[in-house]
């Protein structure tokens, strides 16, 4: 009761403040999620406008006689001749650890029915990316748990790696696997009380996806107990174009909070193709001039300013990082279309998923030839670099020779060996959904393969060999795996130990 009285007194004291100048306007035209407002002389670009009925808008078009405002809310409640006022504030979203484990919408409001969000800080949705001096090179790895990526196309903390492919090729699956893998690592480090380990928090921004898909993803994450390190920002296809347009920026603001406070975060934009489409819709309704494929002229800037906000900041500024995994959907494998080429030129590499590989049974359907990581082995564990350094080259040679193999003609032994090894490596990199592999197991398995222990195993039994080997190592050679995980590099002794373990396993293998 006393608290209530104090609160009322504080409110009345606050209301006694002097009258401030307000900027108002009248809605002249409203439709398609956009309102044209006459007046609002002093409004700034991207300023929040209070449209009444608890609805806010964003001033995007400042014309001579009117202001174009996109409506973030239920626009059916607004009418012509309604008075609106400028708030003098930029759009902000709540940020902080209170959002972990929650599902929110573009404005940071909870949609999972688990009560209000506890957040003291709000970050602006549009913010300038960290400057050149603030940044530092990418050195720490992101363990995605997917062998093909961690071995050949490694991703580092602070990098932007594009995941590009046709529909249903496994783009979202790679991202969910990464989240699950990171959650597992976070939990292990927490349980072991490891103070040196830096947990990686994940933000999954869903733009224009089906709500059933989003629900399924949340279920998968909950089952893997990954939700407590994850924020899900959902802007499904039923959301207005304005909300879909702002969703990635709101997610980036949440990620920036982690980066500014010395923590590491990973943000997934699923997907930016739909984001560009939503922005195109808004621009066309605002009567902005359109360019190629009817996209507005600044569609490149739309994605570049978003992706530049992902960075690794230097020691002096907290040593935090924000890694971005944008997803782009291509049509018929055309990576030379407008939006895909834009985003490819912005990101630090791409993971290219092919439909052909997918239907051949190579899942994840990663095209090793076309995928690249411009950060590369700088962000790889030394042990992984030692065992996997040759792999990309080996596979490139295999692809070249594979054409000969189709002729069925007699090949010299060296070529035949290359082809055999290549087939087995491809078989090795097939991995089921939602089952990330820990780094030390990956290193051990690849090390065993590179030593030639798989060369006499039939191709269709390679997966079986791998499964049995993994079981063997995790149950009988836990000490070896622990040492690899600890030292992160393969010394002579460790290599010898691994070889001995492989010999032991091979003896029992039939």
């Amino acid at each position, binding site marked *: 009761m006393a608290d209530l009285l104090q609160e009322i007194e504080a409110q009345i004291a606050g209301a006694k403040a002097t009258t401030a100048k307000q*900027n108002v306007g009248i809605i002249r035209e409203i439709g398609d999620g956009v309102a044209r407002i006459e007046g609002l*002389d002093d409004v700034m670009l991207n300023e929040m406008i209070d449209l009444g009925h608890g609805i806010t808008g964003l001033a995007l078009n400042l014309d001579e*006689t009117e202001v174009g405002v996109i409506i973030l809310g239920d626009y059916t409640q607004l009418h012509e001749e309604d008075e609106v006022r400028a708030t003098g504030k930029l759009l902000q979203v709540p940020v902080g650890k209170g959002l972990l484990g929650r599902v929110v919408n573009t404005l940071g409001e909870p949609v999972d029915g688990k009560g209000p969000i506890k957040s003291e800080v709000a970050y602006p949705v549009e913010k300038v990316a960290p400057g050149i001096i603030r940044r530092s090179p990418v050195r720490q790895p992101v363990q995605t748990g997917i062998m093909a990526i961690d071995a050949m196309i490694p991703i580092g903390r602070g990098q932007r790696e594009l995941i590009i492919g046709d529909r249903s090729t496994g783009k979202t699956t790679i991202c969910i696997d990464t989240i699950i893998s990171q959650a597992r690592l976070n939990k292990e480090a927490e349980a072991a009380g490891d103070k040196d380990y830096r947990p990686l928090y994940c933000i999954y921004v869903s733009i224009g996806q089906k709500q059933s898909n989003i629900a399924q993803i949340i279920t998968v994450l909950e089952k893997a107990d990954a939700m407590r390190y994850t924020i899900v920002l959902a802007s499904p296809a039923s959301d207005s174009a304005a909300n879909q347009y702002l969703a990635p920026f709101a997610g980036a603001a949440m990620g920036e909070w982690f980066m500014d406070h010395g923590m590491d975060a990973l943000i997934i934009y699923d997907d930016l193709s739909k984001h560009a489409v939503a922005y195109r819709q808004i621009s066309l309704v605002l009567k902005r001039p359109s360019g190629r494929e009817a996209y507005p002229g600044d569609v490149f800037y739309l994605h570049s300013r978003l992706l530049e906000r992902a960075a690794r900041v230097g020691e002096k500024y907290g040593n935090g990082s924000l890694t971005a995994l944008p997803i782009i959907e291509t049509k018929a494998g055309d990576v030379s279309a407008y939006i895909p080429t834009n985003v490819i030129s912005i990101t630090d590499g791409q993971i290219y998923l092919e439909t052909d590989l997918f239907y051949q049974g190579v899942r994840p359907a990663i095209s090793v030839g076309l995928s690249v990581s411009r950060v590369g082995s700088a962000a790889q564990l030394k042990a992984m670099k030692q065992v996997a350094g040759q792999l990309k080259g080996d596979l490139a040679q295999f692809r070249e020779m594979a054409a000969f193999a189709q002729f069925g003609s007699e090949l010299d032994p060296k070529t035949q060996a290359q082809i055999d090894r290549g087939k087995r490596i491809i078989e090795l990199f097939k991995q089921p959904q939602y089952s990330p592999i820990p780094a030390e197991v990956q290193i051990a398995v690849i090390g065993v393969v590179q030593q030639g222990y798989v060369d006499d195993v039939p191709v269709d039994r390679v997966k079986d060999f791998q499964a049995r080997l993994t079981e063997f190592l995790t149950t009988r050679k836990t000490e070896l795996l622990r040492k690899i995980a600890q030292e992160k590099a393969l010394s002579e002794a460790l290599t010898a130990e691994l070889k001995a373990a492989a010999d032991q396993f091979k003896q029992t293998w039939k």
Partner: protein
Amino acid sequence: MKTSRQIKREAKRLFRSCLVNGMLDEGRTRQVVQRVIDGKRRGGVALLSHIQRLVKLDCARHSAEVESAMPLPADLRERIQAGLTRIYGPGISASFAHNPELIGGMRIKVGSDVYDGSVRARLAALQKGF
């Protein structure tokens, strides 16, 4: 055929020609409007509606609507007029209206700027705060 952008530019040009010392001159405005009507040009109606919009906005910027809960005495009105002239310059004209819905205090609207010191506004702010 003139596009709407060209018509807007033309309207802006004609509007600027109606200004004398930065203030809208009634005589000139009437002349310009009459010329456009007499000219019978294509797009003339659109041109006139643009000019009308610009004139309307300019008038709104230079006129102040003062609403008060109670009728104001003459000296207070003079003080308000002087204050507005000080902030907005000499061309401002104030109109006074009586609006009991404000409950108390007054509300001044000049173009897009609103100074709302009425009791109604403060109650609304309190309600929003809670």
